[in-house]
């Protein structure tokens, strides 16, 4: 029972970690919380549903195509909504409100075109489970955990060993100096948004497999945001660990206490961590730009 709980927790936690990394990438370079990320994840779930269920591609290909499409959508989002504000160097609150506006637009666009129906993915995973030490472990948990790990490793390699990745890290630590050294800041930001869109797409497909697809599923991503804050906004290891902690705690609370109080636990955890470590577990000291 305990092993099963832990594996489920890790499965959910790794999806939270994927989503939290999307928030974290954007926060680290632009210093604002991109609340449109939740809507991107929702779109990812819909696109994945289109490929997986309607067109009938295999799981692997629908995951990759979804990731690319949400990446492009994320770039469009940045180009239309944030770039003008960025060029005026508006305070981060304006970007946050714009992001919320974008998420309202996308959510209701889906409402008015696709409708508020709930869709479920084809049941590739639901009947598949393996038994280890007399506890049943769902295949979806194992899949989501390993895909997340692979994504995280790939991101790590990209950021540390590719030219673009190094430029992005330079842009994170000092945008002005990085542009003086010849890095095109707009291109950097475009790539960061592309990366965060890719993570949104993958997370969206897994969310669709685990739950259902519906316009308000972006709400669940609030928890991923909490995970990012717990780990420290702007810190990638923090996002991963925050996501895993949150997933495990939620599963333990809903198995051993009650699933009703699960959300109270996660929100109280958020407040507690912010009280004792105001920058999150791995937060980097950032100048507060108001």
């Amino acid at each position: 029972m305990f092993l099963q709980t832990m594996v489920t927790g890790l499965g959910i936690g790794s999806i939270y970690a994927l989503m939290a990394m999307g928030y974290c990438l954007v926060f680290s370079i632009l210093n604002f919380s991109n609340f449109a990320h939740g809507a991107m994840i929702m779109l990812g779930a819909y696109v994945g549903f289109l490929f997986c269920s309607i067109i009938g591609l295999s799981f692997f290909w629908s995951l990759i195509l979804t990731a690319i499409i949400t990446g492009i959508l994320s770039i469009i989002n940045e180009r239309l909504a944030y770039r003008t504000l960025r060029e005026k160097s508006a305070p981060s609150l304006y970007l946050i409100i714009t992001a919320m506006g974008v998420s309202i637009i996308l959510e209701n666009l889906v409402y008015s075109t696709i409708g508020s129906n709930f869709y479920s993915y084809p049941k590739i995973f639901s009947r598949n489970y393996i038994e280890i030490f007399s506890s049943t472990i769902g295949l979806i948990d194992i899949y989501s955990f390993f895909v997340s790990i692979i994504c995280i490793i790939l991101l790590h390699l990209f950021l540390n060993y590719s030219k673009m990745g190094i430029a992005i890290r330079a842009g994170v630590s000092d945008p002005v100096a990085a542009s003086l050294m010849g890095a095109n800041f707009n291109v950097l930001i475009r790539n960061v948004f592309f990366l965060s869109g890719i993570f949104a797409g993958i997370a969206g497909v897994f969310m669709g497999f685990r739950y259902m697809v519906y316009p308000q599923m972006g709400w669940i991503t609030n928890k991923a945001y909490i995970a990012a804050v717990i780990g420290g906004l702007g810190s990638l290891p923090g996002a991963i660990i925050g996501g895993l902690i949150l997933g495990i705690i939620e599963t333990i609370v809903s198995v051993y206490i009650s699933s009703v109080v699960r959300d109270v636990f996660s929100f109280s955890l958020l407040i507690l961590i912010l009280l004792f470590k105001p920058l999150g577990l791995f937060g980097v000291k950032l100048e507060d730009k108001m």
Partner: protein
Amino acid sequence: MEYFKTIFIVASINVVAVIGMTIFTGFTGLFSFGHAAFIAIGAYGAAILTYFYHFPFVLALVLGSMLAGLVSLLIGYPTIKGNLGSDYLAVALLGFGEAVRVILENLKITQGARGLPGIRICCTVPVIIIAMIIAILVAKHLVLSKYGRRMVEVREDAVAAEMLGVPLFKTKYFSFFISALFCGLSGGLLAHYYGFIQPAMFTLDQSTQILASVVCGGIGSLTGPIIATYIFVFVPEIFRFAKLWRLVFYGSALVLTMIFRPSGLMGYREISFNSLATIHKQLSRLFNKIVS
């Protein structure tokens, strides 16, 4: 006419909450995604008093808003004392708001997610107008007082303000308390207008809408947010024929305002009778020029 009246009352109830938020966000420069929680606390506080204990309406309103203020003192002490960055403070309050909603869904006296039906309906047009005028007058005098000037100093440059001897924590704490009082009052009015409340009415969306009214109306202005609130309630009604698409318009309006007019509708200015007179004078001068 009845339809128009309903929209007017709903907008005016929002205005009371927005005035509170203006003091916190517009004048002190702090953000919150959790003020719907104070509306909820005010609404439930006042409604439980009139519903179960048969308190008079006005007393229940005052006590409900006091309850919201009290809770704000409890949650504000650690969060504001912690000197969180503005993003983090907004997020901590988001967590607080969601936690309050989940707690309301599980308490016995609030009857959980089913909500409280059959609250006495006492909030009529004169009541809401009186409440709104009181709120506006209090806010106006507060903003022009010593405390209001301190808030503006904190917003403009916290470090410089502290050097000049402005107590940072006290100023922020006080402004948080006042904003919670106004939100609680607005909640009490809401409960006694609809006659029915449930936790699902007080979500993050409502907090966002209040914050958006303040930001679109103009940070540092009192009249701007009030006008923006009325626009945000009335314009979706005009687009009623567009059904679900109107929320898409609402989101687009928000984004476009931020992109093209980031200082909000009014910026730092206020509408007063003097400024109306100036506008009138300029218009008539223009008119004379065209005629002659």
